[in-house]
């Protein structure tokens, strides 16, 4: 492996107002190509703000990044690039999917068209064959009868199906990094497991790295190779998922682990 990781977040600080303390302080996170990295922490610990910084999705009229902060994707500095240049990164080199499958898809457009739009936005030359490609990728994310689903509206699909459609959108132009922010949190346990499995299989197939953000140790146990623990805007502990799960060092991590009654009987993936 080269010493340059696929994604390098260095010393990231984000503040939303001069008076309040920064929402994220001095966070450094590395994601090597093709690996699965988790960020875990309770609600409000700064996970989403950190993840959204990568694609510059925080509202920059109110969010300010620290002078010393740096985020590089494949060696390219993102925090200091003009937003117009980031547009070409979003959905192409790195994609992000979100929680709450109720409203993450546009209610008035057919889901197939929404996926096609993303594909065509990054690969205009594929416009002619886009429909077939989209149906293929709906199939790839585990949607049965993809040609019929192509023509449906979000409200006609179940939560898990909508989440799969969003995944199809995210991988449409084969990004090297997928950021999943609580992407499975709103789903019930069995659907959650199936969607996680789909994301894992796609990642392995394509050599795509995944940054998995969650408040659920079960997801870390099931999915991640490496994990960062965030607390009050800072990374308090990090390490191989198996180590963190079996011998947490930080008190906060111990509490997080204690609050999980049982890890759904799963063994850590890397154990």
């Amino acid at each position, binding site marked *: 492996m080269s010493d340059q990781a696929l994604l390098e977040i260095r010393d990231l600080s984000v503040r939303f107002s001069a008076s309040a303390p920064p929402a994220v302080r001095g966070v450094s996170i590395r994601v090597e190509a093709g690996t699965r990295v988790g960020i875990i922490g309770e609600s409000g610990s700064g996970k989403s703000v950190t993840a959204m910084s990568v694609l510059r999705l925080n509202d920059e009229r109110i969010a300010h990044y620290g002078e010393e902060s740096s985020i590089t994707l494949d060696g390219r500095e993102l925090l200091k690039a003009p937003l117009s240049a980031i547009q070409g990164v979003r959905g192409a080199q790195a994609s992000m999917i979100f929680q709450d499958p109720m409203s993450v898809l546009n209610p008035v*457009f057919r889901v197939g068209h929404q996926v096609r739009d993303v594909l065509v936005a990054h690969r205009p030359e594929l416009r002619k064959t886009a429909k077939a490609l989209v149906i293929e990728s709906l199939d790839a994310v585990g949607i049965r009868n993809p040609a019929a689903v192509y023509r449906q509206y979000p409200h006609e699909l179940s939560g898990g199906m909508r989440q799969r459609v969003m995944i199809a959108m995210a991988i449409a132009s084969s990004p090297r990094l997928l950021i999943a922010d609580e992407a499975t949190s709103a789903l019930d346990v069995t659907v959650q497991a199936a969607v996680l499995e789909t994301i894992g299989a796609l990642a392995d197939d394509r050599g795509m790295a995944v940054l998995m953000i969650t408040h659920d140790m079960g997801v870390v146990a099931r999915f991640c190779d490496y994990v960062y623990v965030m607390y009050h805007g800072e990374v308090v502990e990090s390490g191989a998922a198996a180590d963190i799960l079996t011998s947490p060092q930080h008190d906060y991590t111990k509490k997080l682990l204690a609050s999980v009654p049982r890890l759904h009987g799963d063994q850590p993936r890397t154990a």
Partner: protein
Amino acid sequence: MKIMRRAGIEAAKLAVVLWFVSVFAFLALRLTPGDPAVLLLGPQAGRPDAAETLARLRTEMGLDQPWPVQYGIWLGDILRGDFGVSSRSGVAVVELVAGAVPPTLFLILGAVLIAVPLSIIFGMAAAYFRNGIVDRAVRLVTTLAIAIPAVWLGLFLIIIFSVTLDILPSGGFTSPFDDFGEFFIQMILPVTTLAIFLGGVLTRFVYAEASDVLRQDYMRTALAMGISTPRRVFVYAMRNAVTPMITIVGVQIGALVGGAVLVEAVFGLGGIGQLLLSSVLNRDYQVVQGAVLLTTIVVLLVGYLADLAYRLVDPRITE
């Protein structure tokens, strides 16, 4: 089955509304001072020997009957499709109303065609650049457009463009099928007046809807997937913000006709407004009652059509 029941309920509601309107139109004139017979007779009515003539006129017009009887006769005629004749000119009410429809209709169509696209563009832009210069300007202009009565605005435009600058006519109506150029020039000021009023209301509506839509999760998804800003604002957000506009146009059609009636009277276009105004002044009962009822029917029908269109356009509404 369900649809049949819904249609039945809607028809019953429609009947009740029309009945209320018919009672209102019937009473409004009779409860305000002014005797149709006196007005019809003109200056002669003041002469001492006129009493007999007036009594004869009242009998001819059926005004000597008690109100409930008058109302019953009128309603019975209408249910048979007979809206009566003008007591002044003897022309059938339906004919008078039909003749007055084109100016009012063109006025409304013109205002809608101008106000709808402009309010979409400015409402969306203001919501996207919230608190920016565009937003401030749009808020100021729409506040003025809503606050200034359409009649004042019309008079103001006449003073500037017809009286002072003398570049546009202050009124009149020519059928576009006779002379389109003349029609166009005559419609500029009245259409502008009504479009400003309507545009103010609609821009505010689009702005409120768009502000809400732009905060939705699906807009963040589109941003994260690298969809371009123009496409996000004018396709992704717009479709969501503008679809409800169909209903608002349906709901506002009453206010729009009301505004059109006033504007059209200011500019002397000879439409429904002027017909109503002159008939009220002349106490031409049949014409006022008939025109009010016919206009109400059209307004309600447009409302239903808008509702139907909304159901067709929004995929979330099934049935």
